[in-house]
């Protein structure tokens, strides 16, 4: 008759020595993928569209905001309409592939947006992206 009296010894503790490794691995993943929001102008609600494309290269992007109360911000600083062309000309000199992300409020008048576009044309900043949210 076989001997059943011996019990296999099972360790009851959960091994925690590798926990730190797992945590640091996740930490590195989040550190690498984290993108901080650089500029934010409050009170701007973007319009919605379907046929949109994503901008990948953040270094090349300059932000231009037009609020519903007809104010223009470049990055997050208030600017006058006639300053737009000079500011973007300087940026174009620094980064020739500059893409201007136009973040205009959906209530902003088109006339002002059009004049801003004219200023961009003068500054030779011709790559423009009309920022929108995804519809639906």
């Amino acid at each position: 008759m076989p001997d059943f009296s011996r019990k296999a010894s099972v360790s009851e503790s959960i091994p925690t020595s590798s926990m730190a490794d797992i945590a640091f691995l996740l930490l590195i993943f989040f550190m690498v993928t984290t993108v901080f929001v650089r500029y934010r102008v409050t009170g701007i609600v973007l319009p919605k569209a379907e046929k949109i494309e994503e901008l990948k290269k953040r270094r090349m992007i300059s932000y231009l905001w037009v609020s519903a109360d007809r104010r223009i911000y470049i990055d997050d600083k208030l600017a006058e309409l006639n300053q737009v062309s000079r500011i973007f000309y300087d940026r174009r000199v620094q980064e020739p592939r500059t893409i201007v992300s136009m973040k205009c409020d959906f209530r902003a008048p088109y006339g002002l947006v059009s004049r801003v576009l004219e200023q961009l044309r003068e500054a030779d900043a011709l790559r423009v992206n009309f920022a929108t949210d995804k519809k639906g």
Partner: protein
Amino acid sequence: MDVKRRQKSNPEIPTSSMADIAFLLIVFFLVTTTMNQDKGIGMQLPPAGESKKIQKKNICNIWVNESGQILINLEDEVPLSQLRANIQQRLAVNTKLIVSLKASEETPYDSFINVLDELKLAGADKISLASPEQ
């Protein structure tokens, strides 16, 4: 003689709290991470002062007024829902078609984007943005 006993020091680095520190940092990055990418409708503007002569038959003028109504070639008023099909038809007839989009001074940006989006969805590559009269 009283010889002091040396205290034994523990040469190990305590690693039990390492996981806690790492998880704390993970939580920080999880909270601050934003996955929102910049997205929108891309356009290439023409250089300043450039004007090309285009044959009239290759141009399709689209007007958007203050209340968002759309007028094609100053004759047919088209609702936004039918604009895509209308432009697709025109593009099928003439592949060289250039769509000129003109909005008035007080047209809300939202109406302009809606029309531009429909034009892009219809497959119009050549879109010209005309500035409103002042």
